[in-house]
């Protein structure tokens, strides 16, 4: 596993640009939560040792979610994903455990002392979380206060330097409706910040594509990996992914084989059978590099491109949205070592 889960620093950069569907939400929402849950688990050593068997549905959910977690924190253990996916379940189990502890306490300790440990037990988990949150919140508050103070100071300074305090209030109005300061025959000087914000608002309004292209990520369905026997991996939805990327199956297959250093075949249902054991996230990584290299336009980063064979055996990518054309390297297998004795005999 260590060999497979090692993060490749090169690819970190490209993470954001290519995303696999259904996972973004999970990652965004649970990314931080996951970490919190795992931390708590490790802190309470007793809890982590208790045999937890999540119900089948939850386990399945975790299984399907695993891909998404693998994307964001590739190095994080799957356990953490479990914890986040069924947070409620964890809590309930913990509570059960705590009740038992309470009973033990009741039997062991006198009535007066009961409340304190029980309360502690009940509150351990939550309080930990809450404390953390509070701390963060406090920091935020302090920061915000400082910011506000700075802003106030700045404003005062500006106002002092400029005309006066009144102007700050007057700089209002809806530019869309053309009221207030934005009136056509208004002669007051509009502050630069307001003009700038109006410019960006208009830009975003008039060109929705342009504005969103920077942030929107390219989504393809996550690869489905099945294991065939012990040594083969089936890449089930390669046809779908290729269709989505508008690339020939053969091209993607060749790239996959070259990168993974293996061989394979296509079975009856157009699924790809790869020799060797590969996990979904590994295939994802390779697909990501493929997309960066052979799908996205380097100029406008649009995935809406066509790959075509040019005049002299060179492949060219033509972008459909900006019209740029660039050549791409042919897929090279490179050196591949002889693995196993039998192959050596043949070759």
């Amino acid at each position, binding site marked *: 596993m260590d060999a497979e889960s090692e993060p490749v620093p090169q690819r970190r950069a490209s993470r954001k640009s290519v995303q696999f569907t259904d996972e973004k939400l999970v990652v965004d929402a649970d990314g931080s939560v996951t970490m919190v849950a795992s931390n708590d688990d490790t802190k309470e050593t007793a809890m982590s040792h208790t045999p937890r068997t999540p119900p089948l549905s939850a386990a399945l959910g975790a299984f399907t979610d695993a891909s998404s977690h693998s994307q964001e924190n590739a190095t994080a253990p799957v356990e953490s994903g479990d914890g986040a996916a069924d947070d409620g379940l964890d809590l309930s189990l913990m509570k059960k455990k705590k009740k038992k502890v309470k009973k033990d306490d009741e039997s062991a300790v006198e009535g007066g002392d009961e409340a304190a440990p029980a309360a502690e037990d009940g509150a351990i988990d939550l309080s930990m979380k809450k404390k953390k949150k509070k701390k963060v919140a406090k920091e935020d508050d302090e920061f915000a206060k400082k910011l506000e103070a700075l802003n106030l100071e700045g404003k005062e300074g500006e106002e002092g330097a400029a005309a006066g305090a009144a102007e700050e209030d007057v700089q209002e109005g809806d530019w869309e409706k053309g009221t207030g300061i934005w009136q056509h025959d208004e002669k007051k000087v509009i502050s630069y910040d307001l003009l700038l914000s109006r410019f960006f608002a208009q830009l975003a309004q008039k060109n929705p594509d342009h504005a969103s292209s920077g942030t929107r990520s390219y989504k393809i369905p996550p690869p489905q990996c099945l294991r065939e026997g012990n040594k083969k991996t089936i890449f089930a939805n390669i046809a779908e992914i290729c269709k989505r990327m508008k690339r020939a199956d053969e091209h993607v297959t060749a790239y996959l084989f070259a990168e993974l250093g*293996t061989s394979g075949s296509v079975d009856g249902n157009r699924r790809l059978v790869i020799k060797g054991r590969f996990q979904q996230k590994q295939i994802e990584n390779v697909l990501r590099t493929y997309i960066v290299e052979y799908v996205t336009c380097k100029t406008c980063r649009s995935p809406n491109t066509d790959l075509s064979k040019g005049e002299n055996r060179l492949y060219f990518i033509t972008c459909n949205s900006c019209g740029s054309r660039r050549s791409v390297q042919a897929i090279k297998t*490179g050196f591949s070592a002889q693995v*196993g004795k039998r192959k050596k005999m043949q070759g």
Partner: protein
Amino acid sequence: MSIENLKSYDPFAEADEATGNTNAPPKDIHIRIQQRNGRKTLTTIQGIPDNFDYKKILKVIKKEFACNGTIIEDKDGDVIQLQGDQRVKIKEFLVDKEAGLAMDAKRVKVHGF
């Protein structure tokens, strides 16, 4: 006295013939991984410039990464083959300016999953 500009020099001549010092773009270094049986893997490094002594590199690598390795003669030059997944470490080694080969990080291509 000769004027520099008027020297007869054919810019389109093959670089090798004329001067010998080719300014051809240096080859990329490819680091690949291959799966063996079970969880075992091989790492291959292809394209280290010829002016390096492969044997010495291998000796250092073997000691540093605590893995075995060999030099394999391939049709496009020699290839260093190491046992296990050493891709990240190898890349660091190749790029490292003091303890490594001080290669350009852009030229080191890490393949595989």
